[in-house]
């Protein structure tokens, strides 16, 4: 990769800033697209009780009537499940749920945009089909209803997650400051914060459907990946600093050398992680977990972006600044030493 990237800090900063600012605005206005958690949905319930001795054929008929009614009403459901009825949780003496064995619920879930009128039409059609079917001798034992479900937000886990990621990144980079110097820690902190926000912004802007817990999980992954990738650079920087010629090399040349030496390692680490996540997503393709894995590609990609482009370019400036301070300090120390030597003479 060309070392022109080290001189393009304003470009990388602008790219990050634009995406992050747009993301923050969208996060504030719309939040994330937590469609996978079904924040609002409509459910169409067919309760039935095996007191009417519903055999498998009758159960299949119920499903058929519902499917037909939905088709006639022009509505499409997103999920269907048969739920087993449980004893009502009223007596603490019981201690745990137990299956009643004769209450069942055939539940179809629709998007929130499906109209009540369509569901009412489907309800009427299903009720008519059941009433006209001799297999359902006791119509009162089946019951059709529909409702709107609205998820109530539980925000504590979200803000605690955000605080956790921020504190963890800062503490980890204090360790980096101790081991690799303040400049490296500052660049690492900027990279971590950038990647975490960039990840959240991508989810907010692209409206990628996620579970409510997922954005903070991805932000944490972004912070970890970013810190690891930056550490790889830091280690090489420290090795280079031990070279006798290190003092004569400019910050840009130093970073160019570091990038050249460690790019391959960063690419391999990112590639392996991305490949692993893709494998997990593919293996769980037919399950809900695929969405969680697929989303994890974003923080790794964000970490790769900042490690390749933003962090090295930023560190050129940071290192130059810290090198200048070091030189100034060295001159001051040198002057003091000279003065001391002169005084002794």
């Amino acid at each position, binding site marked *: 990769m060309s070392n022109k990237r080290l001189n393009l800090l304003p470009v990388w900063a602008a790219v990050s800033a634009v995406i992050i600012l747009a993301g923050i605005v969208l996060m504030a206005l719309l939040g994330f697209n937590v469609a996978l958690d079904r924040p609002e949905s409509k459910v169409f319930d067919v309760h039935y009780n095996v007191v009417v001795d519903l055999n498998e054929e009758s159960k299949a008929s119920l499903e058929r009537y519902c499917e037909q009614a939905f088709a006639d009403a022009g509505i499409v459901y997103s999920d269907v499940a048969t739920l087993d009825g449980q004893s009502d949780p*009223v007596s603490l003496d019981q201690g745990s749920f137990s299956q009643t064995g004769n209450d069942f619920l055939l539940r179809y879930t629709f998007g929130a945009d499906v109209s009540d009128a369509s569901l009412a039409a489907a309800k009427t059609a299903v009720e008519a089909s059941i009433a006209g079917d001799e297999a359902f001798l006791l119509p*009162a034992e089946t019951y059709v209803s529909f409702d709107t479900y609205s998820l109530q937000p539980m925000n504590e886990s979200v803000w605690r997650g955000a605080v956790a990621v921020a504190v963890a990144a800062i503490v*980890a980079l204090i360790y980096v400051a101790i081991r690799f110097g303040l400049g490296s820690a500052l660049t690492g902190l900027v990279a971590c914060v950038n990647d975490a926000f960039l990840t959240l912004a991508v989810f907010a802007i692209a409206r990628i459907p996620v579970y409510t817990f997922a954005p903070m999980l991805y932000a944490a992954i972004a912070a970890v990946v970013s810190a690891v990738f930056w550490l790889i650079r830091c280690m090489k920087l420290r090795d280079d600093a031990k070279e006798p010629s290190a003092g004569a090399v400019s910050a840009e040349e130093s970073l160019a050398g570091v990038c050249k030496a460690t790019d391959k390692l960063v690419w391999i680490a990112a590639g392996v992680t991305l490949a692993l996540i893709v494998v997990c997503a593919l293996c769980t393709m037919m399950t809900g977990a695929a969405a969680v894995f697929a989303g994890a590609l974003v923080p790794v990609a964000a970490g790769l972006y900042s490690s390749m482009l933003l962090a090295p370019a930023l560190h050129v400036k940071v290192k130059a600044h810290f090198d200048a301070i070091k030189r100034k300090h060295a001159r001051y120390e040198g002057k003091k030493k000279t003065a001391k030597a002169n005084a002794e003479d």
Partner: protein
Amino acid sequence: MSKKKSVVLLVIYTLLIAALCFICTVSFSYGTDNLYTFSSVMRMMEKDADLGIAYGANADAGTYLGGGYSAVYYPEGVISAKEFDDNTDGMSEDEAAQYAADYVRYPDENGSVYLEKGVACDDNGAVLDSFRTAFDAALATVTARYAGLRADGARVESVGDYAIGVFLPAMMDGEYTAISVFAYTGELSIRAGSDEASATDVFTIRPGQTIRDYVKKITSRSAGDTAYVEFTFTDAGREALKTATAGAADTAVTLFFNVGETNVIQLSVSEVYDQNTLYISGSYTAETANTVAVLFSTALDGTAEDLTLTPADAYFHSALYGSNTLVMLYIAFGVFFVAMMAFFFARYRRLGFVHLYTYLLFLFAMILCGWSIPFLYLSVETFLAFLLTSVLLCFSNAVSFESARKEYALGKTMTSSVKTGYKKCFWKLFDLHIVVAVIGFLVYAIALTGLQTAGFVLGLGAAFSGIATLLVNRFGWAVMMGTSKKPGKFCNFKREEVEDE
């Protein structure tokens, strides 16, 4: 290391791996009619409600199949349309008409609930403002209670306009208790007396005061296997409690801890209680103690006007992510494992065995922790964290192998190459693992639910990965290489060829 010593150590190392493999993964029945069962660690480990498939010891007993339980809380003045139909079913026409006259279907003729006139709506069917306000307060209270549980997957939904749907994962031990007691509404009161009927309020709450002037907070804590509900009283509360239990030394006094009119805890006191903190244990687990503490905490803000809630329509829901997720995760891990070993054997030949042993030790350590640490469980998040630390271990091992390879290429002996290679990369790998572990453990310390568990797994995995790569891997290398006469060939390392001019 001498060859004989290497062979002995290798055999012991292999036996250790085999024993751990057996303990972690093999289950079988034995004895007459297979009366006894040996359950592997994997079998005893619990898993997330979202992964599906009956698994683990609880599944053997048929009590845990992933998924969770839902119920609907109907406030007073609201009944489901189904219940209305059920109630009118056995009535005569007159009785049914009389019964129906007290109710209005809401919001229209297709509505799923009926509102009781005078309680929830007026005679014309218009919802009363007071009811609407009370319902909003009840919804907020129930949401606060389920959030307070901090259970992964807990949900509260408004159903239609005037019912509350709740869901808790079956992974919990006390989901039934939580759904039951969280329906209790009203204010917290503590009464003292010889029986519930004659008990009088411990606190004399004057106008302008609330129960908060007497009770600071209610929390839960656990020590070992014992869990407590902890009441912290203000000075006024302590004084009132002292007065109420003044005669306890002569005649035992029972304290009744109520939410609304429902008694939740009875506590016999046989001496004067004069402390700011009261611990109540009993048959609580950490989870049920937390449930009761959350209930009392939210009841501190309860009022006598709170709507009473009736839990009904309880159903079991199968796993969120689908029934085969766990199998698919195992397949994904299998693919990762095969790819990892293919790389190590292809690049490092028999040195791949060193990595294999190191990785297996890391894997079994993680499995044993997953089983023995109570709050750990297998979920998509924890699986992801585990895989990331697996990548970290592979990466670290590869770095240490490559470091030694470079030294060997320069012409050093294998022993010297390994020593120098490790010396060169030790602090780099150390820093890498420390940073990941710090992030993981801090996220665990601050975050909640799934992210918290994933953070812990990340921290734990990084710690194990560090130990594995810096200590175990080097030990395994020394042991295995000692059995080979040609260490260079063993590791697939080559010398740099220098052409003579």
